[in-house]
Every structure is written in C-alpha cells, then in structure tokens.
C-alpha cells in the first residue's frame, strides 16, 4: 500500500524552482531513501510534506487523504514523525523531557490534560523510558540536551520523532556530522526501526543508503532523475553524471 504520495509537487522561490513536479510514492513498510547532490531539493521536499513550507503547486496525500498545505502542528496527529538535518532539540530540557514533550502532544488538547500534574500521566513516562532505552540514551536521561555529544544529540533528534509512536518517519540526514563509529550505531538503529516503521530518509552517505534502502529516489535540480532498488541506482548512468559530473 502506498502510504505517502505526492502529485506534481512544486515549490518555487521567485525564479528558483526548488522542487519541480515531483511524483513520489512511498510504500508502507519500506525504507525509502532520497539522495542527490546538495541543493537538489531534498530537504525542501521534506519541508513541503511536513508543512514547514507551502507548495506552489501540486498535492500531497497521506493514506490517500490530502494533506497539501497542512500546517506543521497538524502533521504529527496523522502519525508522521520527522527529524531534522540541523539538530533541532530543546536545548535546556533534559533528554527525558525532550522526548516527554514530544510524546505528550496527543494528550494535550484533550480536556484539561495539560494542566494535570505530569505524575498523572504515567503512560507517557513509560513510553519515554522505552524510547530512550531503544535509542540507547537511557543513561543520559537526566542530562541537559545541550550538554550531549553531537552523536547523542542526533539520536535524540530521532527519538523525538519516534516519541509519538508514528506510522511514518521522515529522517533528514540522521548521520550528519557523525563519526564512522557513530554512523554505524545510527545505521543499526535505523535498520531496527525499519522493521517497525515506514521510513523516508534523506542521506548523503552512500554506504548507509545502499545497505539499508529498499528503494532509492534520486533528485537533481528539484526533479526526480532516477528511482529503483540500490542495484539499479548504482548502475544508473544519469545518477553518476548528476553526482560526479560525468567523471568516475
């Protein structure tokens, strides 16, 4: 089943076409990567899906429900979680609270839930402990997020996206700035996640992309230039050209 679908999705900034009539299909249960040279429009595409940007044209469907132009705060309610390329956490909150606040959002609007003391929401705390354990940050639960190492912050970044038990994860360069060891750790983690979630991931590190992905979409100058399995993409000449300018 197609979980997320975009139809001729376009974003223009004045003269610049950042995303050009993109038709993307993400199948349920798959780990789907989006790759492409810098400036290809990948993060812009994410921003369009999660509402940070309004499309100039085109449509976005999640489970065949139109979500084009939906504001960011409505997106998590659909079961979509997102992590950001530049670490986007709550710096002075503890690790625990970072995840807690993300996990709580579903309960917030209901009645006076938000006013009831945090102790009366034990299920949320349980969920947070689970998430932290899964991500490997359980020991750092009480540390301030701004004091975490970059690698741990990237993990927290993903943990926040996971906190609300989404169906669909958008991960924007989760391994950005990570050492090879940290990258390996993140990769294993994402692999575990891919068994439970549908994941759309932007990545630059080819080893990550090739070994994890079920399907790869290649973008260049805002459009999709190739799509297929890792083997197909590796063999694709146009992809090589886009990345390397025709030289190998």
């Amino acid at each position: 089943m197609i979980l997320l679908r975009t139809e001729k999705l376009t974003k223009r900034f004045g003269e610049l076409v950042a995303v050009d009539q993109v038709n993307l299909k993400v199948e349920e249960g798959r780990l789907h990567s989006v790759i492409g040279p810098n400036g290809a429009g990948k993060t812009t595409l994410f921003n369009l899906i999660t509402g940070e940007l309004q499309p100039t044209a085109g449509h976005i469907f999640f489970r065949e429900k139109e979500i084009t132009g939906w504001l960011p705060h409505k997106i998590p309610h659909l079961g979509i979680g997102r992590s950001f390329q530049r670490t986007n956490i709550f710096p002075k909150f503890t690790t625990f609270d970072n995840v807690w606040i993300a996990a709580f959002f579903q309960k917030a609007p209901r009645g006076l839930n938000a006013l009831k003391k945090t102790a009366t929401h034990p299920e949320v705390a349980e969920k947070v402990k689970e998430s932290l354990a899964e991500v490997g940050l359980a020991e750092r639960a009480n540390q301030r997020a701004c004091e975490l190492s970059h690698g741990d912050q990237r993990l927290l970044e993903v943990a926040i996206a996971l906190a609300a038990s989404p169906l669909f994860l958008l991960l924007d360069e989760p391994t950005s700035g990570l050492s090879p060891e940290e990258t390996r750790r993140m990769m294993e983690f994402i692999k575990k996640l891919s068994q439970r979630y549908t994941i759309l991931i932007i990545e630059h590190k080819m080893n990550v992309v090739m070994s994890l992905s079920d399907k790869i979409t290649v973008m260049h100058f805002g459009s999709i230039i190739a799509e297929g399995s890792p083997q197909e993409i590796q063999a694709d000449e146009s992809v090589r050209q886009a990345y390397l300018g025709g030289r190998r």
Partner: protein
Amino acid sequence: MVSQGQGFYSRWMPWLALGVVIVLLPFFVRPAIATVIWIFAILAVAFNILLGYTGLLAFGQSTFFGLGAYAAGLLLIHYKVHLFTSLLAGTLIGLVAAALIGRICIQRLGLYFVLLTFAFNQLFFFIAYQWNKLTGGEDGLPGVPRAPLQFGSFTLLDLSQPFNYYFLTAAVFLLSLAAMKWIVESPLGMIFQAIRENEARAGAIGYNVKRYKWIAFVIAGGFSGLAGVLYSMLFGIVPLDTIHWITSGDVVFMALIGGIGNFYGPIIGAALFIWLSESLSVIWARWPLMLGIAFVVVVLFFRGGCMEALERLWGLGMEKLKPGSR
C-alpha cells in the same frame, strides 16, 4: 520539569521564606508599601509566565492591570459590590481583554508582537485619559471604597484597617502564586517552555504554538487584572499611571532584575523595585534616572538577575531554568 525530582527542602523553602517575609514585612516598611509589593509581585510573576517561560516579551501588561483596576474601581464606587465580586470582575476583564488583544497580537512575529502589545497599551491609556467622565482622566478615579470581607451580614475583616488589607492582599498573592506554580509545573508549563526553547520544533511535534502563546497571554492577563483590583482599593484611587506604558516597562524590569529564569525571581524584583522607588523618590525627584541606570546595568551585566546571583553565591538548589534569548 518532569524528570527532576524535587527535594523537600527546595520545594517548601520558598513558601516558608515567603511566609516569614509576609509576616515581618509590615514592620520594616509601611503597610501600604508592603501591600504594593505583593500586588506587583503578582503582576511580575504573571508577566514572567510570558517572558521567562514562553519567551514572549509583552510590553503592555499594564493594559490588563489598569483595566482590572478601573473596572473594579467603577463597580465598587457605583454599585458597592462585594469584595469577591470586584476581584472576580477584575480578573474577568483581564482575561477577556487579554483574549481579544492576544488574539490579534499573537499572530505576529516577536517584533510586531512587542509593538502591538505596546500600541494596545497606548490605546487604552488614551481612552482612559480622554474619557475623563468615566475614569477621571489625568486625575485618576477617586473614591474607591474598600469592600469589607464579609459573608452575608457577618463581617470577617474590616479592610479599612491597613494591616487587614495587607493580609488580604498577601493571601490573594499566595493563592495566585500557588495557582501560577501549578500551571508552570504542569505539562502546560512545559509546553510554554518548549515554545521558548524551540518554537519551530514545538510546532513540528504537534503543538499549535499560536494557541498556546495565546493561552499564556490570557493567563497573564487574568492575574494582572486581579492585581489591578487590589491596587484600586489600596489608595482608594486609580491613578492614570496604572495603565501607562511606563508601568508596563516597570513590570518587565521587575522580572528582569529578579531573574526571569526562576519562578520566584520576579517576586524579589518587585520587592526590590518598589522598595527602591519608594526610598529614592523621597530623596530625589529625579530618581527614575537611577532606575534607568539600574535597568541598563542589569541588562548589560547582570542578566540572570538576583536569583542567579543568589544561586551562585549560596549554591541554592532551587528549581532552575536559564533564560532563553528569544
């Protein structure tokens, strides 16, 4: 914060300390001044929900303070309402005005937000100034009686006595403080802080940031209105300054000098400010100059305010949130 446990000491110390101060204060300063301190303490802590907790610099809190004062004043003068009615009325008008004004101001970015809250402050100031049949204009609204604290025909407390009024105000202050503490320690308070820490991400994880900012604004407005009621009855007159933008600035200053990163900080700020302005104004007519200088010094060098200084000196383990910069 959810995860931080609070030791018995850090949880109850502030209340004990406040209790002691409340009892002792009238012996150090005039009861009227002591009363003013607790009134502005409510105002400053309420304002800090906006600035310290949510990261919103609202420059117009005197709008609600003034509206509460004038509303209560008028009701008390013309309709001789019950004490609780006046308190309720002031709070309500603060809530409603904040709801309406907030609806407009919250829509805009930080800069415009400041400008707009300031401009609305001006609007109401000029209405109060011009509509002198209703408000007394420049001369203020005189003759506000102190409704006694009575139930039916049984008068519990004759509030015309300064000490009695002082303790009433202190009691209202403690109750307000407890309510505001509940709010900031609840998940709602966490949401406010998340907005301060990272507004974009707070939205991205599912919170309607505008709505929560509005809620914070309304809460602050309500408590400001309540403080206004107490002020109107204190001197029996509602001066025009109550709704002037400089009063709004004073509230900002109180929060800042007390320490916006701490729930109790603004209380110290209010006490310091009131005490200073009282002492200085009898010495020197130009005392606002000292105020301005103090303001500049605090802003440039002393940003954490008194609370941070205290904490550093004594290593108190009180609840700590560092001020956000935006």
